[in-house]
């Protein structure tokens, strides 16, 4: 196969359609994506989209009300309520959740969700329920998310669930209404990309750094129109939590979805979860799941290869998630930046109050946010706790730890992690999307710098005028301790 070399760290296979190249292969192997996709096609419209059957539909309070209104206007009910799961996450406060929501519009939206779920027979894990949490945290931890499924939600980070070997993607509210009405969506098949990462990770480097590194190489539009499979020995070595962090940010590359072939790590994670298959059904499911991988002769439209050893702790300096660098590097200049971000660099740095060519290390930080569907799982909290134990936050930094779900919160308390946070001056809050998106009460004030484990550094994302630096939980915790952007490797023994 002809390979075009772009630089030392990654390669792109030849041009030409995937179909043409697939014809050239001896066995015409199928990709993981195709194995799942093909099983879920009800029919295909000529010169049009396919009718894709949806196994699981997650909903939340922000993108569902207009869809329920649409159903009510048509006088129909949710077709398959038992394949639909609801929670309240975007608009909920993360303190005093036992009290009524103060902000009226947020409260009305959460109340509308309760009413709609009741009327349509949809299970709701709302505020006060022991399963409540961020929709992309609770699906996996309850065992609802399983390999081979098609999963959608009115939220772009639905790609998270792809870590289990599922086709999972975000949809708009009209599409939420389609799934309510028919349990199907009209979808055109995306092109297929595989991103391979091989080798052992360096000290202080975790899965968030991997995905920020990939983003810095292929840019925030590098995978638009593609379904991405993440593969290679580095990916195989990761826990489910770490894999979810990577698939979560597939959408930040523009990808329709991101997925990873399920393996023993996946199966062990799912086994015993509240809603996972039990007894004889477990073995039946397991046999099916074990067929879910890309055949050795499967063909992708585009393929990238990265080496784990090249990845250092990462941080973003700009206003899209592709604008990332190693914490030890300097901010690019118009001469060194990639084409995708060249025209936006000056505007971006003006917003961020940062300078071309300057070091990012040593940048003063005001807030630290550890949470969101990207990094709020128990493993993230354990990692932060183990690093900060015996240390204390810098005086002028505010640190928020927001667990992804009630279950994560309960687990953290059971393990005594909450005490470590308290002693370090970190505030452990209650589950929700929190300061990821500047929608609920948790916002970063204008002009302030927040090192955040979330997924987006867009202008105003964490609050109007807020300046976001995306990083791993470890790098965020290091900044919490020093008060500055810090290379965490310097603080590890």
């Amino acid at each position, binding site marked *: 196969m002809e390979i075009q070399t772009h630089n030392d760290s990654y390669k792109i296979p030849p041009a030409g359609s995937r179909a043409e190249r697939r014809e050239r292969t001896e066995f015409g192997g199928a990709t993981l994506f195709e194995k799942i996709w093909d099983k879920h096609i009800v029919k295909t419209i000529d010169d049009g989209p396919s009718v894709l*059957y949806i196994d699981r539909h997650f909903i939340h309070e922000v*993108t569902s*009300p207009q869809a329920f*209104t649409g159903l009510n206007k*048509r006088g129909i009910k949710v077709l398959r309520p038992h394949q639909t799961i609801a929670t309240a996450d975007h608009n909920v406060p993360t303190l005093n959740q036992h009290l009524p929501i103060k902000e009226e519009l947020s409260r009305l939206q959460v109340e509308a969700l309760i009413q709609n779920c009741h009327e349509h027979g949809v299970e709701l894990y709302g505020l006060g329920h022991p399963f409540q949490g961020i929709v992309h945290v609770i699906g996996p931890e309850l065992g609802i998310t399983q390999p081979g499924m098609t999963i959608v939600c009115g939220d772009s980070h639905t790609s998270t669930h792809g870590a289990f070997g599922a086709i999972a993607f975000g949809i708009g509210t*009209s599409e939420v209404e389609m799934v309510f*009405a028919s349990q199907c969506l009209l979808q055109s098949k995306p092109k297929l990309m595989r991103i391979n990462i091989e080798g052992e990770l360096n000290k202080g480097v975790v899965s968030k750094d991997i995905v920020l590194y990939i983003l810095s190489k292929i840019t925030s539009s590098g995978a638009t129109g593609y379904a991405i499979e993440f593969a290679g020995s580095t990916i195989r070595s990761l826990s489910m939590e770490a894999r979810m962090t990577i698939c979560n940010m597939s*959408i*930040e590359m523009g990808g329709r979805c991101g997925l990873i072939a399920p393996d023993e790590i996946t199966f062990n994670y799912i086994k015993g979860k509240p809603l996972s298959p039990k007894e004889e059904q477990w073995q039946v499911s397991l046999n099916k799941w074990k067929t879910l991988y890309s055949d050795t002769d499967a063909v992708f439209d585009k393929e990238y290869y990265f080496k784990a050893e090249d990845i250092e702790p990462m941080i973003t300096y700009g206003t899209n998630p592709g604008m990332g660098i190693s914490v030890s590097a300097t901010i690019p200049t118009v001469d060194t930046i990639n084409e995708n*971000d060249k025209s936006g660099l000056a505007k971006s740095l003006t917003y961020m109050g940062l300078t071309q060519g300057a070091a990012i290390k040593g940048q003063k930080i005001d807030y630290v946010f550890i949470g969101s569907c990207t990094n709020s799982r128990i493993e993230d909290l354990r990692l932060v706790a183990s690093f900060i134990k015996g240390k204390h936050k810098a005086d002028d930094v505010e640190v928020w730890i927001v667990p992804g779900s009630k279950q994560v919160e309960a687990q953290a308390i059971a393990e005594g992690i909450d005490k470590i946070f308290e002693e370090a001056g970190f505030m452990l809050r209650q589950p929700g999307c929190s300061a990821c998106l500047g929608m609920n009460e948790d916002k970063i004030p204008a002009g302030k710098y927040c090192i955040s484990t979330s997924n987006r550094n867009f202008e105003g994302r964490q609050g109007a005028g807020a300046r976001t630096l995306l990083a791993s939980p470890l790098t965020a915790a290091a900044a919490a301790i020093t008060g500055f952007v810090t290379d965490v490797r310097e603080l590890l023994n």
Partner: protein
Amino acid sequence: MSFELASLNSKLINRSQVNKMKALTTILSRFVPINIENIDTDQIIPARFLKATTKNGFGKNLFRDWRYYNDDESKTRADFPLNMSQFDGEILVAGKNFGCGSSREHAAWSILDYGFRVVVSSFFADIFKNNALNNGVLPVQVSEAFLQRIFLQDNNTELTIDLEKQTITIISTGEQEHFDISSYKKTCLMNGYDDIDYLISIKEEIQKFELEKL
């Protein structure tokens, strides 16, 4: 007429459509240029305005934080095109990778509510493109060169988008480019059909699929 468009037409043409979209065939209009790349949906409509439970009224907050200083409607940013009186029209022209980020359909609703029927760019993010089409807003993807030609025109220049012919034309210069759209989506837009009508119409096939394939 290809494929099952004929049957689709017969299935939908006489339906009383609940959420019937406004049909779109040709648009002749001046345009509003926003020459910025990678415009994400948080800029199109910030999250704090997503608390409504209806689809109406989002237009006034379109590009909210680029239109006003400090979220104050009395402090407009004079250099932002939506605030410049010389620019007007039903066509928004923006830099490449328009609509990336969040899946919020509120972005499409705010663009439509503001008065745009067409967005022209050299590249669109997937979810935004679907959301726009589902609301009767036409995303027209042109080459980067053609996009730059549009940005060079003065504020009196009109553009014509002909959906039937799939062309976009700069009236003053006669420059024209063809754009792609699936014939299914084209039929839907030209007639104001939506996907939900279609999916409900094939409910029996879906139930058969559930019994046989799942």
